[in-house]
């Protein structure tokens, strides 16, 4: 079986459209980010306490809110989590987190004894830790980008490194934008997903670059442009098959992995789609664009060889 017979699509000539489309997506994401005043961070980065409680019947949110208001948590954020029987209660950083948690849990089990509420998880993060984690996350993303640039620079040429990094920023920014549009929270596991997206998207990009490198050596008569095009076409079938198998498993995880992994697998899902797109429509076109500018600067007209 084969999805694609030998294709010969001129991807590069459509680069202006692709780049504009991506810039548009990124812009929309950034604008919503600005409107929302930055990403919605989870308590991992903000500090606070989050309690996940399961009820045996659909949870009466309004009554829970009232009951918690009576014991001094009027400001608590209460919402369903995954199913109508599950509730997530979030409170701000407290003087004594332990006490706050047990007050809430005790109140729930007293007032709603007939629904047998059980604590599924409690997470509290101090405000200082949140700040530290935020800077650690930023560092992690930057360091991995730097390492990748370095590796590609060594194995390929600098210009390929630029192409790969642009594609990676593109993937992360678009995923971030989608998170912002949907008002989904950035937690530690979402950052982990971002890093995975970086790794995955790169995987795709490198396969294309590798083909370009090989073709540059063997097809000396072709123009740089058509070599790039040909390389994308030659690896297209593989790109689609691998993305498909990966999407299949991530989709299974998204559907079946439970609430804890929901945002994580959602980020992966978006990232894989965007990453596949960017390895075809962004990474290589950026290489082409960069090379062209270089050529124009150095005054040569047609093509350049390694």
């Amino acid at each position, binding site marked *: *079986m*084969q999805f694609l017979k*030998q294709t010969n699509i001129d991807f590069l000539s459509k680069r202006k459209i692709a780049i504009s489309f991506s810039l548009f997506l990124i812009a929309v994401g950034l604008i919503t980010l600005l409107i929302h005043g930055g990403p919605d961070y989870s308590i991992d980065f903000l500090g606070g306490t989050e309690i996940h409680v*399961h009820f045996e019947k659909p949870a009466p949110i309004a009554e829970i809110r009232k009951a918690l208001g009576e014991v001094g948590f009027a400001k608590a954020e209460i919402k369903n989590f995954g199913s109508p029987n599950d509730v997530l209660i979030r409170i701000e950083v407290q003087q004594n*987190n*332990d006490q706050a948690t*047990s007050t809430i849990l005790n109140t729930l089990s007293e007032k709603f004894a007939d629904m047998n509420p059980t*604590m*599924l*998880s*409690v*997470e*509290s*993060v*101090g*405000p*200082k*830790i949140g700040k530290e984690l935020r800077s*650690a996350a930023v560092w*992690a993303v930057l*360091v*991995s980008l730097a*390492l*990748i640039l370095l*590796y*590609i620079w060594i194995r390929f040429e600098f210009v390929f490194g630029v192409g790969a990094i642009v594609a990676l920023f593109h993937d992360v920014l678009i995923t971030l934008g989608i998170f912002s549009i949907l008002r989904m929270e950035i937690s*530690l*596991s979402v*950052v*982990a997903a971002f*890093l*995975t997206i*970086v*790794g*995955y998207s*790169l*995987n795709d990009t*490198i396969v294309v670059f*590798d*083909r370009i490198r*090989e073709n540059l050596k063997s097809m000396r008569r072709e123009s740089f442009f058509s070599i790039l095009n040909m390389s994308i076409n*030659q690896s297209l*079938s*593989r790109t689609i*098959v*691998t993305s498909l*198998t*990966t999407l*299949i*498993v991530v989709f*299974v*995880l998204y559907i*079946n*992995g*439970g609430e*804890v*992994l929901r945002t*994580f*697998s959602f980020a*992966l899902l978006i990232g894989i789609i965007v990453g596949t797109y960017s390895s075809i429509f962004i990474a290589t076109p950026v290489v082409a664009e960069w090379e062209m500018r270089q050529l124009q600067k150095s005054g040569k007209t047609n093509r350049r060889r390694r």
Partner: protein
Amino acid sequence: MRRNNLMRTIIIFAVIIWAVYQLYPTYSLWQYRQQSEKLVQELQTFANLNVDEIHEALRVGLLEARLRESIQDQDKLNRALNIAEKLNELQEKIDENEPKSIKQGLDLLGGTYLVYEVDLPELLRSLSKNPDARFDSLMTEVTRRSQQTDEDFFNVLLATFQEKGIRLNRYFGRRVQTDDQIIDELKKQAEDAVDRTLEVLRNRIDQFGVSEPTITKQGSRRIVIELAGITDIKRAKSLIGKTAVLEFKLLKDPAVFSAVLKQIDDVVKKKIKASGKAITGADTSKAAGTGTKEVGVSALFGESTVIGDSAAKKANDTTVVVEEELFEQNPFFSLLWPIGNEVMVPAKNLRAVQRILNMPEVKNVIPDDAEFLFSSKPVIHDGQEFYTLFFLKKQPEMTGKYITEAGVTIGSGSQSFTQGQPIVTLNMNREGARIFARVTGANVGKRLAIVLDGKVASAPNIKDKIPSGNAIIEGNFSMEEAKELAIVLRAGALPAPVVPIEERTIGPSLGRDSVRRGQISIAIGIILVVVFMMIYYRMSGLIADIALILNLILIMAALAAFGATLTLPGVAGLILTMGMAVDANVLIFERIREELRTGKTVRAAIDAGYSRAFWTIFDANVTTFLTALVLYQFGTGPIRGFAVTLSVGILASMFTAIVVTRVIFDTITQKRTLTKLSI
């Protein structure tokens, strides 16, 4: 050009055998755990003990004793003891398999992850000489400011004091000291508070009732505690927050010690006889040459419900180390090893000895004013771990609250045998000095044990009356041991204020739910990918599928071999790897298809496909590997688990997708010359 396929086949089979060998303990552990869990649940329904308490008692060998304390009804008690016996046997097996198995993270097992930090304002308040109203308002200011900035607490402290024109020596240290000197000293105090807490918690490590509590220092002012499998978080936290108790207790006379041991031995012997079960069931001939043999624990207690042959068979599973000849005559002595002047217990026998010491018949022969305690840390002797058994007066001579300072120095030249050796110094306040003078004066020649939370840290000899309140403890300490002892001595004196700053607790039901979902996701994911590959690449796809399944087995085996922890994100990483692992084969297959299109023979196309795709696969995997490494550095617990499975998955897939599939292809094409390849 054909490379040595036989060699490769052998390597592949060796790897498979290795993987099965690595995974077997994990498999058995699951079985034993399930059985054990069922019994614990059953026990919990009528035994007035919660799950954690049962686990804890089980781990330290006190289950029977606790049950006797908590159950009044005789019928119930008998039933409980019966279950306890089975649990003890299972626990032995679990202990044996646990270190060799894949560990489950606390998000799968349920459990809690806690980060504690020194409560610096509180520490400073307790260290200050004269905390007046102005000091309090200054400290409030410092606390408020430090919460707003990323600046180090001590820098904020210094800045705040300097702004107000107050020198630190007004409240801390000595008059002659400069601000910088005082800050240095306070920083040291903060770190010492962490070290003391760490030492106290490690001393309590077995009381948490979980298999592998990890207690580690993070930076200089934080402690990270991970308790996987715990269900009663409140109990764990109160255990962490409990003030340490340091006591000085006199050792009983060695003659009394051996007399009591003898009596206990008689009791145990009588009990075995009474139960009518001879130890002859155990195979004594087997280890005759070595002088030691392994005996089923149940034989020692004469309580076992197992009779005859099966007892002999069981002997190999749950064993203790005993001296063979001694065993028949002195069943209890045989568990103990005299080394030097001490009575030692091999780590493996520890639980059995605990159980014997807590049998009601044995308790009767122990004098009321005395107790047995173990050393807190094992000593290594001939490559084996031993705990020292002490017999002490129950009533402490003195508590740790009189200690003002404890430290380590190097022995001076005045006494030749301590020259150059680390010695521990100990200073007491005036009242402490008075008590210590009386105790040491009256007991010269006896040994005084330093007991932290019921465990003996050290038991030095009293050489002379010490009237000054300044004592030294000599011994064959290494520098490390001396430091630890000094920390123990300080721990009882100065409670270290620590506060939790991060807590992540996963309830057991959520953990179970995650495990179930993980298993289903892996199963569905694999089936879908396998079917897809078979449809898309036909026979070649099937070969890739074999590699994929092998890949999964290899990853699990590697996790078991490295003692890595499987977390929920780790499971996600595993699933993701399943999707990405076929990538290498997709690359190769697409390449082979291309080569076939150019008209190459099947064999040539396969050769070209593999060699051309190799570097692509390599480059693509290295970069993913790099991000996984960064992820490992950046993340805590669960996320690290993700990074680990991802990177192990990459390595394993390189092997299975390139080497294993190649051998299969080669074997197929070798037999006959194919003109068409199913791809």
